């Protein structure tokens, strides 16, 4: 095992180098991921097939602004797989605001993740209505958006306007099939990036293949 930066680690498991984060709540598993103890520190393996952020790292993500003490607004927390790893990374003095609208998955999010991790603030609200969020205060360092909606980019931009710091990073997962099934994925990604351009400097676009089909991650910086 060796350390790559303070955010995540490459750990040797089953003969391969795998992505992992340091477990903030030792002994706690979120999605039956493997826990590995090295030199008295417990690490959780981070499955790129389950988490698109991990998939992006595997596919050469150049920017990783999630670090100790970061505050993150996460739209589309779902059952909290990725949220839990970000929670590991930002540590006890960081905050992750996890927004999720669907109550069925939010139940798992609350049960498995939010109750155990003191740096997560669960928000069961519709991301379309950022004004109604409670308990979010100040501006955040990173906005991470993974909501499968046809108008997801606009929803994300609205949220950034309310909550993202100037110069803050914005991660947008584009699930092209949710935007339009009939168009070519590549074109959809280009169109969505066009929507970002007036307010964001687009830094990198990553195809998440083979971990997720027809998904792309767009990393940009808020230059408002």
């Amino acid at each position, binding site marked *: 095992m060796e350390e790559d930066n*303070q955010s995540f680690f*490459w750990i040797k498991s089953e003969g391969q180098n795998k992505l992992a984060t340091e477990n903030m709540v030792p002994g706690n598993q979120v999605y039956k991921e493997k826990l590995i103890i090295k030199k008295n520190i417990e690490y959780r393996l981070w499955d790129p097939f389950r988490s698109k952020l991990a998939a992006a790292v595997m596919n050469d993500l*150049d920017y990783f602004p999630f670090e100790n003490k970061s505050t993150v607004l996460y739209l589309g927390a779902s059952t909290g797989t990725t949220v839990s790893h970000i929670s590991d990374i930002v540590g006890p003095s960081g905050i992750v605001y996890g927004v999720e609208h669907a*109550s*069925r*998955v939010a139940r798992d999010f609350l049960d498995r993740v939010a109750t155990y991790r003191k740096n997560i603030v669960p928000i069961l609200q519709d991301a379309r209505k950022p004004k109604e969020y*409670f308990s979010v205060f100040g501006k955040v360092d990173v906005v991470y958006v993974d909501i499968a909606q046809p108008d997801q980019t606009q929803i994300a931009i609205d949220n950034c306007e*309310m909550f993202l710091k100037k110069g803050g990073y914005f991660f947008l997962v584009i699930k092209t099939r949710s935007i339009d*099934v*009939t168009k070519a994925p590549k074109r959809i990604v280009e169109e969505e990036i066009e929507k970002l351009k007036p307010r964001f400097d687009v830094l990198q676009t990553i195809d998440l293949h083979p971990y997720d089909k027809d998904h792309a991650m767009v990393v940009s910086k808020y230059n408002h």
Partner: protein
Amino acid sequence: MYSVVLTELGISVFNDGKLDKAFPFSNAVKEYLLVKNKESKLNELVNYLAGTQRGFAVSDESLLAILKKFSIDCHLMESSELDTIQATKPQIIVDSGFASNLQDTLGKLREFALGLSSSKVTEVSQSPDLHIIQAINSLDEIDKIANGLSSRLREWYGLHFPELDNIIDSINGYAQIVMAGKRESLTKQIFEEAGFPESKVEMLSLISSKSRGGDISDINLAIVQSIAKQVLDFHELRKQLEEHVEAEMQEIAPNLSAILGTAVGARILGRAGSLKKMASLPASTIQVLGAEKALFRSLKTGSQPPKHGLLFQHAMVHAAPRWQRGKIARAVAAKAVIAARVDVYGEGLNQTLLEKLNIRVDEIGKKYENPTEKDMRPPPSFRREGGFGDKPRRGGDRRRGDRREGGDRRRGDRREGGDRRRGDRREGGDRREGGYRDNPRREGGDRREGGYRDNPRREGGDRREGGYRDNPRREGGDRREGGYRDNPRREDQNSNKKRKKFGRR
């Protein structure tokens, strides 16, 4: 200048930026929700404000509405002021004395968020339509299990008494006879008790004495009998569930039940997710619920769109001649959505809906009594040329439909491309089991609402690209640098690269 600020832990009144008076919530989640739902009375606050000067700036619309009800002169803050409050909220909470310091504030806010989220989950889980959906899904599930178990029972007991299979149609009667024991011990009385008519009882007792079947050991018989017991139990449970769904549907969705019938109504409700969601869907969506595969095929290849999905199970659609079904399905779907809306937002049973639907269906029946020439023509076939490499799907055009079909995509494709004839646009299929099998969405089952992360297929492993776990190539994440398998340098290269990228800040 007075301002009234709603926070998660209480309401504060400021005078020129200085705290004037604070009204902490004793039960933050409950009281905050009351304010948000405009149900709170806020007596203390109202009395206090009434006693001071006029013209308050208020930070929250719900709070504003409540205060206005008590004819207090107030207005909403400007957005710049709201931004300031947003940014300094923890400080406001500390200043108001709702928490002792910033650290405490964070803890309290998080607790509040957890409490509020939990109460929302509880609230949603209580809604009766979710229970109906579970019931109807259980019913379909039980049908599936009972069918399989029944044929197994017939096969197994058939080794001992093969003639019985052809004589007794109802699985219930069959199971009762199995429960009675071996062939030799079957008496007329048993047959009578199982409720068979005299002629059958005669025939059965005649046949049982000279059966072609072999002996069955006691151990085997005991197992067969416990299967029979299960079949009978399932039968009973199914009956209960049916009645339960019927009663509940009449209770919470009387209009929907009137238009669709309770069973079909409940299934469509299940597809939509909840009564409220169904009420917000367009009729065209309801029309094709359950025919997703055909719908997405139509979207991507331009083939004919499906006429009906689950609605095929509806008596009116099912009984109609083929060329009228699409029109009738459309009419039924349109009325069904209106019915769902009346059930959610209106009250009681609205008889005119069903009447109007009947009128419309009669009209269709008369107007399109005979098929036109166009109706007689078989729909264009979407057979693919030359096996796998069809043009419309190639390259980047792999579409959702594909992915959802699960398992081996290629095989699925071939099957689809095969003999696509007339009946194909319909996925309703068999009345009871209605095309579920093909429906990819069933996989996700109950979690449909969101989070496709839960999709069981995502658990790595069995995608076609194959379990990365075992794939040595996937090692460090950078696949471009080649030299994968046994290259000892690989690890270093990889980590150096990453270090450069993310190096400590």
